[in-house]
């Protein structure tokens, strides 16, 4: 069933599809870059929303999969394998595997323990990334050749890359939409709202939550593969714990457990960051250097007063 809200989401995606033409018309190619970045983070946020929003699992370590996806592409490229099929396949596969390992331990816990254990695993991977000298250590490394798809799409062409990211974003939105409305998704949401009752009617929560955790990790790994192609640079900074916090913020800012939420959240947070830092808007250095102060205040206010997020402002009823 397609709700009003989902129509709005489709409209937003169509609008995003018109951006390359507009950017070309106004001769502002930079916005293609900015929005591509926004959409890549939106994919990561969509994947986090699956476990955080629908599954009720507050993962404070989702940036780990951005890193794993990135490293999968970077490591293969470093060894001269530029095939995107292999690179992205590895990104998804490796992220799923790592998510399976982390999930196997952490999904058994709940509440604060879950938050902390996901954080701890990401810290571990972060320090691992810093220590591997072969792949640049903390400096990271350049990934000068973008993933190649047998001539089907050329990622060096900004517009083609843009549409590919848009396509993947639409696909992941659709996938999560189908998932949460499937039997699997219903069980997952049932576990979130009342674990004891779900058990009582005969569902064991563990496999459902673990499966969601793995799917989410794999999707975020793909976002990591896109991100490293976008920046042409691989760095363990992808896995910094503050990055996990930003992803969570995108989800909650946009509206938790809504389909449009992650995209709105990623867009507003990243555009706001760009504007807050914008040299032309805030003339005084003293003001500009402290943009994180305003971001912090904004964050606190959103959490305290806009509990349903931006998607809550959209018409139509809550899903």
């Amino acid at each position, binding site marked *: 069933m397609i709700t009003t809200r989902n129509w709005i989401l489709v409209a937003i995606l169509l609008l995003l599809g018109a951006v390359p033409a507009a950017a070309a018309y106004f001769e502002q190619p930079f916005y293609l870059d900015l929005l591509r970045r926004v959409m890549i983070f939106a994919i990561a946020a969509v994947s986090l929303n699956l476990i955080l929003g629908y599954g009720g699992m507050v993962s404070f370590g989702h940036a780990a999969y951005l890193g794993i996806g990135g490293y999968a592409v970077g490591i293969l490229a470093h060894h001269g394998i530029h095939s995107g099929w292999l690179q992205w396949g590895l990104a998804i596969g490796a992220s799923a595997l790592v998510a399976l390992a982390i999930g196997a331990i952490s999904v058994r816990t709940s509440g604060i323990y879950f938050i*902390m254990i996901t954080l*701890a695993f990401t810290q571990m991977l972060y320090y691992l990334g810093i220590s591997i000298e072969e792949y640049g250590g903390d400096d990271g490394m350049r990934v000068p050749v973008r993933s190649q798809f047998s001539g089907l799409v050329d990622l060096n062409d900004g517009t083609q890359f843009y549409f590919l990211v848009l396509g993947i974003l639409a696909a992941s939105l659709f996938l999560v939409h189908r998932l949460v409305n499937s039997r699997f998704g219903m069980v997952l949401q049932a576990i979130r709202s009342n674990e004891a009752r779900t058990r009582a009617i005969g569902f064991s929560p563990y496999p459902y939550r673990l499966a969601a955790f793995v799917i989410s990790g794999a999707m975020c790994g793909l976002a990591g593969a896109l991100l490293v192609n976008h920046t042409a640079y691989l760095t363990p900074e992808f896995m910094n714990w503050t990055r996990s*916090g930003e992803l*969570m913020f995108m989800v909650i800012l946009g509206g938790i457990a809504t389909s449009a939420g992650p995209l709105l959240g990623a867009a507003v947070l990243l555009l706001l960051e760009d504007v807050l830092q914008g040299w032309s808007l805030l003339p005084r250095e003293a003001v500009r250097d402290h943009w994180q102060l305003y971001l912090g*205040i904004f*964050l*606190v206010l959103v959490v305290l007063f806009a509990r349903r997020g931006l998607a809550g402002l959209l018409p139509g009823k809550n899903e």
Partner: protein
Amino acid sequence: MNYILIAEQTLNGLQLGVMLFLLAAGLTLVFGIMNLVNLAHGALYMVGAYLTTWFYQATGSYLLAVVLGLAGTLAVGIVTELVALRTLYERDHLDQVLATFGLILIFNELIAIVWGRAALYSTIPDYLSGHVQLTDSLRYPLYRLVIIGVGLAVAVLLWFTVSRTRIGMLIRAGASNRAMVAALGVNIRLLYTIVFGVGAALAGLAGLLSGPIYAVQPGMGELILIQVFVVIVIGGIGSIRGAFAGALIVGMVDTMGRAFLKPTLATVLSPTAAETAGPALASMLIYLLMAAVLAFRPEGLFPSRGS
């Protein structure tokens, strides 16, 4: 093996442990009683270090600065609780994590606005510097011994308060069933404010103790905060005993890992492999430990609730 060195590293581990304990005690109580995940706990540690450093420079008296610094951190903590955190108690962990993440940004920037981003000069009075000859061949810095002493004293005091006094009884009761405590007519709001204030003051104490040996700069709280979370998760959230055990374990494991992991690995692996693996493993050790503990005891070593 060199026994003197092992003894010295044990003291180092103990000192790091009690420092972590001071931070973990407040955090674990706040979580246990109010069910609040407070990422901004590290910010209070930073506030403690800044205020004490500043008061010491302004007044010239270290003891006065310590008192004022503690009082100041307590005040900042209570104001934060009243203004921002109080509304978060009934929210889910997600909201709490995000709002207190926002508070970290706010605190760091406010500190940078008041004192600048450069690290502050922070020192100790002469009577606390110097060394103590513990045995013939073991000298240890006096100030580090003072930290160990203060930390252990606070641990004993907290243990006594929690297990032997009326307020401690309420705290224990609150940790196991909040609704029941409130239903029995206890002013739960006041209890919350007291617990949060004590936690803030302990964080401030850790901050003022660490000022002279660490760098007093914005963001200093986050460097140590994640380790503190590891401590309370290993120990079991809400339990002072768990925080103490967790802090000592993490302090020891981290110190010993940094000191002895590489030489130990070198006896098994090639020197170059040990050179690479040693430091990498040492940085990950406490996280591995935490994963291992949670894999076998998902509620930590000393769970405060339930069976």
